């Protein structure tokens, strides 16, 4: 279709040249019987008469004007008689025809092939959004949901669905907005408010703003036992430089915590950085030691990466040869997922399932972690 239209346009353009060229001499329109400038001067003479009729000029002035215009008229008349249009050389016309038939299409097509994208269809947004979802990328799906939400901003469930997706797509700002809408429409739950605060924090480059803090505080109010908001609140205290309070918060958080919980190593790091007393179970964990962490934070980024990769590899080797606790498996899965290696993460998950397939409690824990990390088939 495109090519047919292109051919038609080119042909029309060529015709606009060919038709006038092939007309016989003298038959062309636009050749007035009287030369154009003579017409102007005759009209000027008429106008002098009219002005005289209406007494706009006096007779002597009219006479003078008439003389002057008549002189121009004569000159124009002379010119017309001396030189009239010639048929032109046949060579010129032939060259013109060749240009129209050959040069014009070749030049245009050539240039268009360089500049244009003939293979690319139009992509109107409405049509792209209406395509069946299976063929669409995540971005397209998200755009579709966002469009739906722009039209139905009261759809709280929609906001709740899109928020974590935006978060994972690296749009914490959008996620924070979506969570806020979900909270507004569906009411605050500890998880939702916490996630909102987390998104706000991510959007703010990891700094916990006053509004994010308020969200975490609300979450703690709703569920005093919730760990995640308390974790962030402790972090906030640290960021504010309230070291004593922060240490106390971390310690109360770690006090009675399951040593195998996923957040514990990070909490211990924070506590260590702040210089607080470590809880007793700290030594039992085979996570990186304080020295190791400090060494890592002083290293160049590449060295840091290789050190982390080495530690992860060590853990993986140990688990595959000696086996380990469910928490250790989960830590490995998490490590891979943080490093962005989801296939290895999935392998670790499958090994963990093999190892603990007969123990429902542990399996459930592993499955939950896999779900959270986006590794398993939920």
């Amino acid at each position: 279709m495109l090519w047919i239209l292109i051919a038609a346009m080119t042909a029309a353009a060529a015709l606009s040249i060919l038709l006038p060229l092939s007309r016989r001499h003298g038959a062309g329109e636009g050749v007035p019987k009287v030369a154009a400038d003579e017409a102007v001067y005759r009209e000027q003479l008429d106008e002098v008469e009219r002005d005289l009729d209406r007494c706009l000029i006096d007779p002597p002035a009219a006479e003078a004007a008439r003389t002057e215009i008549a002189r121009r008229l004569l000159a124009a008349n002379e010119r017309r008689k001396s030189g009239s249009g010639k048929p032109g050389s046949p060579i010129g016309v032939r060259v013109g025809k060749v240009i129209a038939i050959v040069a014009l299409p070749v030049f245009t097509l050539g240039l268009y092939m360089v500049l244009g994208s003939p293979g690319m269809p139009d992509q109107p947004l409405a049509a792209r959004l209406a395509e069946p979802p299976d063929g669409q990328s995540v971005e397209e799906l998200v755009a579709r949901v966002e469009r739906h939400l722009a039209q139905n901003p009261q759809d709280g469930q929609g906001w709740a669905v899109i928020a974590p997706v935006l978060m994972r797509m690296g749009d914490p700002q959008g996620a924070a907005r979506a969570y806020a809408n979900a909270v507004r429409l569906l009411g605050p739950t500890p998880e939702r408010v916490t996630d909102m605060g987390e998104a706000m924090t991510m959007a703010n480059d990891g700094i916990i703003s006053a509004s994010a803090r308020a969200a975490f505080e609300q979450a703690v109010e709703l569920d005093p036992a919730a760990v995640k908001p308390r974790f962030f609140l402790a972090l906030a205290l640290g960021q504010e430089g309230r070291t004593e309070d922060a240490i106390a918060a971390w310690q109360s958080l770690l006090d009675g915590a399951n040593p195998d919980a996923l957040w514990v190593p990070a909490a211990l790091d924070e506590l260590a950085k702040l210089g607080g007393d470590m809880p007793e179970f700290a030594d039992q964990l085979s996570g990186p030691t304080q020295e190791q962490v400090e060494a890592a934070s002083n290293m160049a980024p590449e060295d840091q990466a290789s050190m982390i990769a080495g530690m992860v590899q060590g853990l993986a080797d140990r688990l595959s040869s000696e086996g380990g606790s469910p928490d250790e498996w989960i830590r490995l899965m998490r490590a891979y997922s943080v490093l962005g290696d989801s296939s290895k993460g999935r392998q670790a998950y499958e090994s963990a399932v093999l190892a603990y397939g007969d123990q429902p409690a542990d399996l459930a824990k592993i499955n939950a972690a896999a779900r959270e990390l986006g590794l398993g088939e939920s």
Partner: protein
Amino acid sequence: MIVEIGHYALVLTFALTLIQSVVPVYGAIKEDERLMAIASPVSMAMFLLVLLSFIALTYAYLASDFSVQNVWENSHSAKPLIYKITGVWGNHEGSLLLWVLILVFFGALVGFFGANLPAPLRAATLGVQGWVTAGFVLFMLATSNPFNRIPNAPMEGNDLNPLLQDIGLAIHPPLLYIGYVGFSITFSFAVAALILGRIDAAWARWVRPWTLLAWCFLTLGISMGSYWAYYELGWGGWWFWDPVENASFMPWLAGTAMLHSAIVMEKRDALKVWTVLLAIFTFSLSLLGTFLVRSGVLTSVHAFAVDPARGVFILVLLCLFIGGSLSLYAWRAPLLKQGGLFAPMSREGALVFNNLFLTAATVAVLVGTLYPLALDAVTGEKISVGPPFFNLTFGPLMIPLLMAVPYGPILAWKRGDLLAATQRLYAAFGLAILFTLVTFWMWGMDRVLAPLGVGLAVWVMAGSIAEIVTRVKVAEIGFGRGFARLKGLPGSAWGTATAHFGIGVTVLGIVTSTAFQDEKVLTMAPGDTVDVSGYALTFDGLAPSRGANYVEDVGHFTVRKGGVVIAELEPSKRLYTARQFPTTEAGIHTLVLSQIYVSLGEPRDNGSIDVRAYYKPLITLIWIGTLFMALGAVFSMADRRLRVGAPKPAARRDRTDGAAPAPAE
């Protein structure tokens, strides 16, 4: 596919411009009828192709096709429909396409209506128009192609510059462009005449409708831009001598001069060389304006493109066109025969006077615009040439010019009688003195210049009416016959009078609104009232609000006169969220011809806010005057004496039938 069709059409146009640039011009020189004959059909084909391109791009905007880079960069799916359309030319690439569209549109008009032109002149003119078009289409294809595609189309666009999301700016560029670009056709006529080595009174008549058309649109475009700056920038001013404004004002001044010198050329076969030069200058100034605005040399709202490659390209185009045409002028102009002679005190003399002052004013504006740029380029020193410079240079030039305006149309051709002309202007002079005295009496002696300014404005307005009245000699022949004669006056006489009247109206608006405006700059807390020229302006409070793509703080004000509420004003400060871009929206209430203008400054902590409040007496006259000027151009264009030799039904002496063109006999 539609997008690609548009792209192909543009490429095809380029190929046609190359042919158009060479074949008809060669034909015109060799007087080969068949080669000349291709000019008109090709000019129309080019117009249709560029129109197709433009429609294709508009479609891409309407459909939010973000696979087109230009759409992605400048549009947003949530944008209101009107701004999706105006967004087409609200950016560098799209506005160039509009530029080219108008360029080929004027070419097609000449091709279509140019049957009365001599074939060589028409062919050469269209050929030269083809050169200009070729240059600009090449510029687009090489550096600013609006049809570039993105392989993986994003799902959302970047939105349009919020300042451009305004109805005023939606209409202003096309008007301005028709003006700017319209002067291209007079340029082409001038260059064609130079190529053919023949120029005479008939040439001036042929060119005149095109000049009038371009001038009319440029007047409207500038006026609209000025009103936009007035309500959108929030400073209460309506003209800032900003380089971008100057860029459009210079072609206007030069175009106005050309309009007047072309009259002399048409009537008396004189000033030919000068008129041709003005035609070249006017379009050169349009090109210069485009260069200044587009190259990023000037930072402004309009500087869509800050890309050195583009700047250099336009500069090369500029040098090629201006340098080329001036060289041609230097080479051919001595061949042109000088025409009729005239005494200094005559209609011709008055028009030369007009030309001298308008040209001097153009140069003043040009210097004021370019000097800071040149200084910056050479020494790196940044200065800004502001209103004081222009008030000292441009202002004094305008005063003698305006004083002379009523004389122009009244003086006789060839040899005029100043005394007789003055007698016909007694009434106008009397009125001017009367108004000056009344203004003195009302405002006292503390503003000496203002009453004189009012007098000058009245002089120009009354003078233009006097021209019509004395021309039909109402006093001598009675009202009945006078009225009949009034109807018989040629359109150009009405055009002159209307346009000159408009100048007076604009001057009156400028003088009164600057001299007698009441300006209050203060901090207002909710409940505060301030008196502005007898109007009590109460600040009721500040309230946040939100629009489709912005949030704003709206100030609520009530205007009372003698305790009676006459208006509520809602000036606001907006923040366009997508680009984090703040704008101000002034609150304006129009009282007949005057306006109360309120704009917001920074809010304070305690709920109070900085406010600029103005009472601007008669300010709307500034823009109403420009409407009169444009209307004058329309009257002149409608003058059927311009349509000489067009194919016709025989209806010669019938003046009332304006549609019937005069026969060519």
